[in-house]
């Protein structure tokens, strides 16, 4: 049984008049225990909402429309707030994009990390909490951890704060760690440090869901990939399948439009147009109006997600043959 399973999950946003515009549409994927999945996409593709849906921390205007999200076999969408509080920060934890603002400025680091233990293991002795907090800080490469417990977030650099966030997220050995753009706000050399730490964590058998726009980060750390575009999973499969044999025109376009350190100076094969907003999604394939291979059918019908190869699922009318999943 997979650790996490999204089953035809759909959600959207309610405007002031109560009308709901759909964002995430029929999203299905799963993460096996101990595996790292990358959720890739550009702004507004719904990747952050996917992770917040699993955490049940969606903003007020968000509305769940249909589907299931199973975690440990239970549907989190039907859990009570009390039940969610038990798994958040415990079996399921999350780190965020902005290390500068994600820590409480008026509480000490030790206090904020220790709180995770206190919430989920209320019977732990203060000494034990302190010892475990120090150990978790050391495990993410923070030197002199004992002295730093009594410091406040503003005394840490951005990279150090992200380490603290990671220490906080892994202290209860979660079954799944969700990382939402954990390195986007950081400098490249600091990003390399953080990715190194996160790679080190993978040995600890917990699963990872890496939400990012950076294909390089995904290639670095994940075994499986979901590519999202405008709220839909357009392609998913193993890292090798997606990176070496991408099928969906969007995935192909995305891969080739990124300048890399080895690319030549010829014109970049860019995808025309811009990322649609929630209000101008088309009726058929949401990528249709930017797609160079767009067919008449693409404008009318939503492409089905079909299994086209081993562990390789694509939602595109170019590949109409395949097993329905």
């Amino acid at each position, binding site marked *: 049984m997979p650790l996490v399973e999204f089953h035809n999950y759909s959600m959207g946003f309610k405007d002031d008049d109560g009308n709901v515009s759909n964002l995430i549409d029929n999203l299905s994927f799963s993460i096996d225990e101990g595996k790292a999945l990358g959720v890739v996409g*550009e*702004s507004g593709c719904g990747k952050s909402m996917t992770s917040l849906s699993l955490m049940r921390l969606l903003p007020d205007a968000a509305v769940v429309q249909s589907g299931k999200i199973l975690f440990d076999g239970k549907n989190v969408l039907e859990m009570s707030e009390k039940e969610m509080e038990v798994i958040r920060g415990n079996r399921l934890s999350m780190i965020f994009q902005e290390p500068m603002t994600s820590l409480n400025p008026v509480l000490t680091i030790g206090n904020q990390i220790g709180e995770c233990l206190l919430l989920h293991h209320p019977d732990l002795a203060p000494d034990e909490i302190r010892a475990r907090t120090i150990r978790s800080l050391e495990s993410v490469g923070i030197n002199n951890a004992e002295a730093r417990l009594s410091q406040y977030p503003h005394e840490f*650099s951005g*990279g*150090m704060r992200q380490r603290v966030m990671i220490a906080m997220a892994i202290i209860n050995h979660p079954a799944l760690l969700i990382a939402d753009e954990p390195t986007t706000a950081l*400098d*490249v*050399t*600091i*990003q*390399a*440090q953080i*990715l*190194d730490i996160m790679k080190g964590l993978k040995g600890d058998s917990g699963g990872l869901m890496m939400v990012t*726009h*950076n*294909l*390089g*980060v*995904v*290639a*670095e750390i994940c075994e499986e990939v979901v590519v999202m575009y405008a709220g839909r999973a357009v392609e998913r499969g193993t*890292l*090798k399948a997606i*990176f*070496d044999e991408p099928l969906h025109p969007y995935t192909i*376009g*995305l*891969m080739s*439009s*990124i*300048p*890399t*350190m*080895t*690319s030549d*100076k010829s*014109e*970049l*094969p*860019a*995808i*025309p147009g*811009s*990322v649609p907003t929630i209000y101008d999604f088309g009726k058929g394939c949401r990528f249709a109006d*930017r797609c160079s291979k767009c067919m008449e059918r693409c404008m009318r019908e939503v492409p089905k997600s079909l299994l086209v190869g081993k562990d390789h699922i694509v939602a595109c009318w170019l590949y109409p043959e395949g097993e329905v999943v």
Partner: protein
Amino acid sequence: MEKGGPLLKVEHLTKLFPVKKTRFFEEQRHVHAVEDVSFELYEGETLGIVGESGSGKSTLARAILALTKVTSGTVIYRGEDITDFRVPPAKRKLLHSELQMIFQDPYASLNPKIKIGEAICEPMLANGQARNHDEAVKKTRHLLEIVGLRAECFDRFPHEFSGGQRQRIGIVRALAVNPRVLFCDESVSALDVSVQAQVLNLFNALKKEFNLTYVFIGHDLAVIRYISDRILVMYLGKVMEIARYDQLFSDRAHPYTKALVSAIPEPSTAARKERIILEGDIPSAVNPPEGCRFCQRCFMARPECFEVEPDFYEVEPGHFVRCPYMKGGE
């Protein structure tokens, strides 16, 4: 200006920002934003300036364009000293149109209540690039089409555009006054990858069409490498390396550049080389380390690196590195 000489020459440019004193008798300290930077920019080339936060790359551009007063050093444009734009008013007007800057978010510099067409016409008229309003409008519509926006966009307001479109508007605004050199400060950083490629292509196309020279500033080495002919690598206010884009992978590259190149996660499944991971954070520019700026984090540092500031060495033709251990022969 002699033929074949540099279009723009920056010599020993330094910009220090005073740190606010907390005590009266305290010694005045400074943020060493840009220190002793010298380089030449040739007509028709694209010079990339790459660096992490605190490297001073944006301050450098602002100092050249007289958007902030330089502490010392000179800026020579077409053979003439234009430091802080201390030139006669007529000449200054010309400089303002010939040297243009494009920012990361042009939206912030657009008045939300003015139609973008008018916002573009205005500097054109002020700088004498158009004789009357009609001519300005015609020219603006033409430019909008060149950058891939429809001419109808003229009558729209800034908020009606997406990030990529706004960046195009920013480009049109700069192009409207017939610039020779465009300074692009993180101009594609905020864009989605699929849109970033379009804008990079646009920059390249415009360069040919309008005979432009670019100074392209950014933190993403892969993007800077793609767009640039030559690259300036900055760290803590100093230039560490000046190289042709294809010399970045050289064994003779500066250790910092090597680490930077190695730190970029490549979007491919190919087996990767052992990564160089730098220890620690970027130090504060208030108390930069003595000796080499990079000594504290350098994986090759030797004791003398902490004492003596290294010079530039030309390790290959046109490839300058501020590290004595890269000059070879050892």
